[in-house]
């Protein structure tokens, strides 16, 4: 008996419908009700979210947190990818190994390392105090700067790997041609390498951004209880306040915001791919 290969998608599709699509549908329905028993329809939860500046400022701050951490990842991740594609195969595999290691190491463990680094008596404060740059320890833990720094480290591999994939496929002759024709290294980078690697950059930005804004563990451990971002807000409303319909509404708003941003970046990514076509 020969089965059609396209049918092989069905078992996983069934699981996704039963355990991914259905829960999200129930979540949307719950967000449109006043109480967990779902008897009366209402948009009160959404009105409550957008009627209170506390709520939407959390959304805005979460999205900005993602933007900042993504930009830091890009600024440092791009040079890693650039160096890696120009290194010898041996160095290349060492770099890739070291970049991948953090993705596999537990996020809790990596965040824990940062607490030792950023604390009042942490590594950074000891170094700065020792050098006499500062006289009082800096407050790094429980600040937004701290959260951005840690998120950038935790999610950097998600930026480096897609850029590396695209960059290693760029025809090296193009850069050579640019230099032979008299463009300097910086101009070649700006006019040849960056435009051709844009699809990788955008793919990396999408992955890093979505990972940063949902990074519950890092946000709560480094940000503490006073810096509230969307995931903690959902958790507090769902588990702490036991207000499921409102938590559902926040979750839906958060997911829609993420989808809009991913949609815009994805559209930019498809446009940037036209650069790479001959």
């Amino acid at each position, binding site marked *: 008996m020969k089965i059609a290969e396209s049918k*092989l998608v069905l078992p996983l599709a069934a*699981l996704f419908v039963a355990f991914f699509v259905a829960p999200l549908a129930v979540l949307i329905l719950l967000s449109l009700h006043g109480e967990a028993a779902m008897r009366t329809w209402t948009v009160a939860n959404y009105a409550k979210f957008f009627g209170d500046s506390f709520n939407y400022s959390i959304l805005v701050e979460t999205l900005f947190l993602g933007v900042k951490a993504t930009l830091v990842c890009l600024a440092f991740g791009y040079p890693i990818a*650039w160096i890696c594609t120009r290194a010898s195969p041996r160095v290349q595999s060492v770099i890739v*190994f070291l970049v991948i290691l*953090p993705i596999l190491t537990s996020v809790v463990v990596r965040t824990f390392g940062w607490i030792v*680094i950023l604390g009042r008596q942490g590594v950074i404060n000891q170094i700065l105090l020792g050098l006499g740059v500062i006289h009082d320890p800096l407050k790094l833990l429980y600040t937004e700067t701290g959260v951005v720094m840690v998120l950038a480290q935790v999610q*950097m591999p998600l930026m480096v790997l897609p850029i590396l994939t695209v960059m290693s496929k760029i025809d090296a002759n193009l850069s050579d041609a640019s230099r032979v024709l008299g463009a300097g290294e910086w101009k070649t980078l700006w006019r040849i390498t960056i435009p051709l690697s844009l699809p990788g950059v955008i793919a990396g930005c999408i992955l890093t951004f979505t990972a940063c804004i949902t990074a519950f563990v890092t946000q709560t451990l480094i940000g503490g209880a006073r810096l509230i971002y*969307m995931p903690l807000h*959902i958790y507090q409303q769902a588990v702490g306040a036991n207000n499921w319909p409102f938590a559902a509404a926040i979750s839906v708003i958060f997911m829609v915001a993420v989808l809009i941003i991913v949609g815009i970046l994805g559209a930019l990514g498809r446009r940037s791919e036209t650069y790479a076509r001959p």
Partner: protein
Amino acid sequence: MPAPKYAIDWEAASLRIVFICMAIFAMVFLIAPTVIVLVTSLTPSESLKFPPPGLSLRWYYALLDADQMQRAAWNSLVIAFWTTIISVLLGTAASIAIARSRSPWVRACDVLFMSPLLLPALAFGFAALVYINKLGLSPNIPLLVLGHVIVCVPFILRTTIAALSQLDPALLDASHSLGGSQWMTFRRVTLPLIAPGLGSGAFLAFMASFDNVPVSLFLADERTEVLPIHLWQQIDTNLDVRTAAASGVIVIFTIVLMLIAERMAGFTQQMR
């Protein structure tokens, strides 16, 4: 007068210097926390100071008595094991369909299967809790495993689809024309060729499940504590040095598994 030939090309060198410095800084930044966790876990003292005043395995011995942490670690391993098995079975089948079919339905499934990577996992965890509550069920380990499969299967799909697209279709035709059945072709031709990709994906899925907090937070029942949540709570409430030792064990465990994956499947090549 033209510049002599042996002069340094500052324009070219400046780019290299800037990028090499940034890359070195970024690499140190990437590795430092892991190294610091390892070194700190060897402290003989009660505080998490870096550098530690001396070196001892005291806190690693203390782990031998940490019953709660051991139970949590065992739960996490069991859950990650079942998550990986189910994800590999369903993921391999779906990858074959996605790699070889052009039906728009299959394309749509591909997008659907990748979406857990982009959507906030915590929102999905909460949605799953609301859903099983509406079904009249309460959180338990099988449901937790299914929740993990949803968020871990994209890793297997990515690497397996990539491996399948590298596979030469002529090999499959050859097997068919020599009388190999569909199953035999899969077993003797496709599977051995995609094994490195599939294995790397399975490894990623295992680690993602072992490390998952957002889904476990909602779907683990009261009696089943998983390791990352246990550690998260420990760090949040009382910074115990045993947590550093547990982190040290996880780091070493990860490096060993990764070296094995590199040997067996050329893991770093699969990730690119």
